């Protein structure tokens, strides 16, 4: 990749301790625009913990997270999203009592500028922006194949659709970097194949960077341009899918001695 460009995400010597236990240490990562990067590793390696630090759900104990060249040390979860990082969750976290389209509209909340008085009085600004948001939300739902379910309650969707809706909601915040935490978990092979196409489409259509955690090796090897391997909270290896597949340390970490 173009090494002279500023990476979207640059992580330097990141680490976190939980009550004396080091969960992640000396983690380094660069993600460039238009890239799909995989983060893999055995269960308990600290992958989701890395995501939680990148989104500031956990405050890192050490290290630096630079987003588009900016240091993010003092930023909160909300500010990280406003800066342009959106994520999905390993255990799906939808707004399950709200309609599918409202789940997506929530993602657009910070793009709406009318205030509460304008909303209560239903002034033209409210009407215009609501119409625009509805249209944009429907467009996103169409991309993720959910447009027919727009008025359903999100919690009643089938599992695969819920995962797709989570991605749609994240995309509604217009991120520069999308973090996907096991997007294919619980999907059947056909759904996984569709998901791979969808992830590629999202990258090409919105021109964003994607960092994903996944256990499904077919998906990871199929769509990621680069892969980082995490083991016991430490970076074990990084490289192209072919390099990772051939790396003896990675094979050892996954299969044991």
């Amino acid at each position, binding site marked *: 990749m173009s090494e002279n460009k500023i990476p979207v995400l640059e992580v330097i010597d990141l680490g976190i301790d939980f009550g004396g236990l080091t969960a992640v240490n000396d983690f380094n990562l660069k993600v460039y625009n238009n890239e799909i990067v995989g983060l893999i590793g055995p269960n308990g390696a600290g992958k989701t913990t890395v995501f939680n630090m990148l989104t500031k759900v956990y405050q890192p104990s050490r290290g630096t997270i630079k987003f588009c060249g900016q240091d993010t040390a003092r930023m909160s979860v909300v500010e990280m999203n406003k800066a342009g990082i959106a994520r999905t*969750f390993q255990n799906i976290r939808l707004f399950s*009592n709200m309609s599918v389209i*409202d789940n997506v509209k*929530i993602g657009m909340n910070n793009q709406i500028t009318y205030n509460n008085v304008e909303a209560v009085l*239903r002034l033209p600004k*409210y009407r215009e922006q609501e119409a625009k948001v509805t249209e944009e939300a429907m467009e996103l739902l169409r991309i993720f194949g959910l447009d027919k379910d727009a008025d359903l309650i999100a919690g009643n969707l089938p599992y695969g659709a819920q995962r797709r809706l989570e991605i749609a909601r994240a995309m509604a915040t217009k991120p520069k970097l999308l973090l996907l935490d096991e997007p294919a978990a619980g999907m059947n092979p056909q759904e996984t194949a569709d998901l791979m196409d969808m992830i590629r489409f999202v990258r090409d259509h919105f021109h964003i960077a994607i960092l994903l955690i996944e256990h499904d090796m077919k998906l990871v090897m199929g769509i990621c341009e680069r892969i980082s391997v995490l083991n016991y909270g430490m970076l074990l290896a990084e490289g192209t899918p072919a390099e990772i597949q051939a790396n003896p340390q990675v094979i050892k970490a996954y299969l044991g001695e």
Partner: protein
Amino acid sequence: MKTNKNFFAKLFTREYRSRLISFLIIILGYIVIELLMATGNLSSMFQSLLVPVTCYIVAALGLNLNVGVSGELNLGQAGFMCIGAFAGVCISGALAGVISNGIIRLIIAIIIGALLASLFGILIGIPVLKLQGDYLAIVTLAFGEIIKSLINNVYVGFDSNGFQFSFVENKLKLAPGGKALISGPMGATGTQRIATFTVGVILILAALTIIYNLIYSRSGRAIQACRDNRIAAESVGIHVANTKMLAFVVSAALAGAAGALYGLNYTTLIPSKFGFNLSILILVYVVLGGLGNMTGTIISTIVLVLLPELLRGLQDYRMIIYSVILILTMILSNNEKVKTFAAGLRKKLTRNRTKEAAADE
């Protein structure tokens, strides 16, 4: 013709259907009651309930925004009503010499009551909304009790020099012509009764408009998102504390408005009327009506206010029956068999409706 059809289609979207039903109930109810009164068919006992019912409905609608839509258990709604009530009484008393028109004074009192209650809502909300679940509930309970017992110790008078305040002991020295408005535990005495049923109904309609328009807006979606999943809401850039605060403050403001109307409906009013029991009573209206269901809140408030009166024939047994009905409603509405039955019934009804719609095409 086409625009006409679109108009009706819009009326029956989920958003507008619930709104339409709740407005219809209030307006039809108002017309029926006005007719009954005009023809002299409404007993004085029912007439005396009209204004309080509108107050309870407004306070309960506000609480439903807080408990149902925002998902935070609030056990202090009576405290905000208390602020509104006594603020309203003071304002109305002070303005009595300036504005002779009772309705205008009432409206001013309601607005001031709502503003003052929302100010307290903000002050209380800043610390309270950091807590979660049952802890938040107990702190709202505590604030409600604190407000009640503070007002129990406040003495307010009004004379040519303006408002006079005194705390714990009555040290008011009012100029000639001045009057005491709040006298500690004795509360407000000699209040001019300017509350009317019509203003109460208008207040309900205003409350419904505010709540519905808020729910179907950016902030309303944010409020529901924070209820459903706080962490996910933050991850899409929603400031949870501010969002919960909005629901809390709007709820407090509506309680304040309801309180002002309530306070101006009685010549005497004691602060202990606004204790924990009233907060609980309003919460019962909300929960029985269905969390987040504004139409349900209106219906359950009316039914539950009327129920003890309708049971009056049974005299001593009425409150026992009331409590048994409360318990049975909760048990039955949570019973799996009853739930499946109700769901089946609803399905049948909607199927019939879609069939009709298909036939119309």
